[in-house]
């Protein structure tokens, strides 16, 4: 077979599309043993991405099972059931508090997570917080546009959860002895059904605060818009005890 002059001159390189071979300008490096070495940052990014994928898949499963047609009614039963499903997935993931915060942002900013439904999202994040290795969890959510509901659901004793930013409805409901600090505002039904523990809201709080709470404390740095039907426990507004007190008309406090 005849070899073209160009091909003769070139020691390596594959002819492309039947044309002459191209000189390999990196030929001397063919002897260099190429090993894909990960720099530490790569490893961190990769492991973070892997964990995020797992967390994301758990959330998607929760939506599949509990929010069919993308509708989710906040009822006591639905919350309990969603939480059980979330617990099931969360227990299998090895994650850190930082991953929870990343997930909160991914919920809003990534195309990989299709729907942010504040209810199931809050239940899922609460499950993540309750099963996290760390005792103290700080979530910096002030940049988040959506206020997530149900944060701090069933926060157990020994856990402290601090949220920078505002939270949605049903914050800290069913609290089980943990300490929940909200640096911004909290909406309605905060602390509903909580049994023990402490909720501290630095700014204002909405209606039905402490509805059916059985114990513990809710301290509000700003104004309490309305109290719920409280069974037992204490509510403070700017260090002043407002429940138990004279107020008998829930949600008509002001």
């Amino acid at each position, binding site marked *: 077979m005849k070899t073209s002059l160009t091909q003769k001159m070139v020691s390596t390189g594959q002819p492309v599309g039947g044309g002459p071979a*191209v000189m390999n300008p*990196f030929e001397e*490096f063919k002897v*260099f043993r190429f090993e894909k*070495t990960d720099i530490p940052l790569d490893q961190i990014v990769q492991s973070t991405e892997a964990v995020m994928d797992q967390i994301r898949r758990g959330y998607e499963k929760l939506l599949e099972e509990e929010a069919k047609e993308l509708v989710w009614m906040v009822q006591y039963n639905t919350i309990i059931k969603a939480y059980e499903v979330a617990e099931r997935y969360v227990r299998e993931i090895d994650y850190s508090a930082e991953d929870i915060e990343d997930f909160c942002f991914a919920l809003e900013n990534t195309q990989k997570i299709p729907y942010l439904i504040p209810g199931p999202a809050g239940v899922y994040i609460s499950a993540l917080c309750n099963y996290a290795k760390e005792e103290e969890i700080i979530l910096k959510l002030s940049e988040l546009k959506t206020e997530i509901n149900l944060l701090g659901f069933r926060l157990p004793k020994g856990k402290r959860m601090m949220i920078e930013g505002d939270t949605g409805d049903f914050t800290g409901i069913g609290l089980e002895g943990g300490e929940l600090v909200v640096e911004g505002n909290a909406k309605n039904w905060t602390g509903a059904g909580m049994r023990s523990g402490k909720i501290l809201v630095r700014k204002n709080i909405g209606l039905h605060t402490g509805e059916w709470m059985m114990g513990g404390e809710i301290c509000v740095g700003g104004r309490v818009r309305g109290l719920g039907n409280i069974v037992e426990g204490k509510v403070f507004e700017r260090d002043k005890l407002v429940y138990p007190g004279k107020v008998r008309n829930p949600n008509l406090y002001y």
Partner: protein
Amino acid sequence: MEKNGYQKQVMEVYQFINDHLYFNRPDIEIKGERYNSAILFSLLTALNKGKELIIGEPGLGKTTSAEFVCSLIYQFPLGVIWGSEVSGHPEQTEEKIIGRPDLGKLNRGEEDVVWTNFSQIPVKIVDEINRLPETKQSMILDGVDRGNWEYLNEMIINDEYCLFATANYQDGGTNTIIAPLVDRFDTMVESRYPGAHLSFLIGKTKRKDHILRHPKYEKDLYRVLKSKIAHEKKIPKLEEICNAFGEYVEEVLGIKPLQRQDRDQIRTEMESLEMDLDASAFTRMLLAEFSFCERYGQKRVVENCEEGCHYTGYLCHDIKNCASNRLPTSIKQYARGLAWLMGDGEIDMEHVKSVLPYTLAHRVQWKDEVLSQKERAKRDDPFPIFLAKEAVKTISQRFREQSEHLKDALAVGSKIFQGESLEVLEGDHPVYVEIKKDIEARRT
């Protein structure tokens, strides 16, 4: 590489010049040894068939350093070297530099060329090259580049030659050296002030240059040079006389100059030395930084950097021109010479880093803002060499940080060229973009 005696012989020449002929301080350290850059690079130039530009203040030994080196490496008595030097001045002509018509033959209606000594002998020294007007500098371009000297449709080709040119700093009588001529010089060194005490000694002692003179051999050499025989036939005759002068030098001074076969052998040994992978990757990184422009494809002296360019932190942003293809040739040539002289088996990073500032300094056109920013910096070197040394330091730092990744990227590039289906390794440095461009060019 095992030393076979030539390295020792060359180092003895270095030492002899350093101790007896050209007094100066060492100003460069390579692998723990200190050298004087003017002598070291002149030796490498003479051995390598290179081209060197020697700058410095008047009277600081620019020309004499080159003369001593050439005399001992090429075995020419100083008288012949002096008689073949070309000096730069505004009235210089082609007839004085290259050759003139043979007037006797011309009278008889025949055309023949009488070649100058400068064009005939392998040692070429152009004194004060920047006193040649720009228009006349182009006369010597081809000769400087290829060793081809043409006159009246005749040509002589120097198989073996080296060129030294000296230049003063700018004054009323100097011109700038045109860019294509500057680029043809492989290296630039400064012949520096040796310090008050060594300078005092130079004044105190008698002239040393007479020890490299020999009137009889000088006359013999002139006779051969002036003879009408063909240039090719003159060469063995010249060599014969040069060898006799070499024996005289060995007998009287105790050092052995290099004969033609010695020089050829040394060059063969040098050519067998290749760059190791670090040296190669480092040189590629440097070349990328001195030629890269994301916006316009490459550096061009007529184009300016874009505002807010991503590559603002790299040296491409500080310079105006593009590195020429002669730059890597010079780097390799001198690094190879240095590796040989040190008896090393490969050209490594140290060799490359040592020669780089001297091969870059005259070729880089820095932007005005860079010049004004750095001109007051404390330094020992002339400004262009200082800037080049700073640039080499900067790139060395970058290379240290990412040498493995860069070698990986180059290895991946090689595998892709061999047909493997791999992803190009990314990186921020311009060299990675250049790798990508080569691979894309292959794929299309």
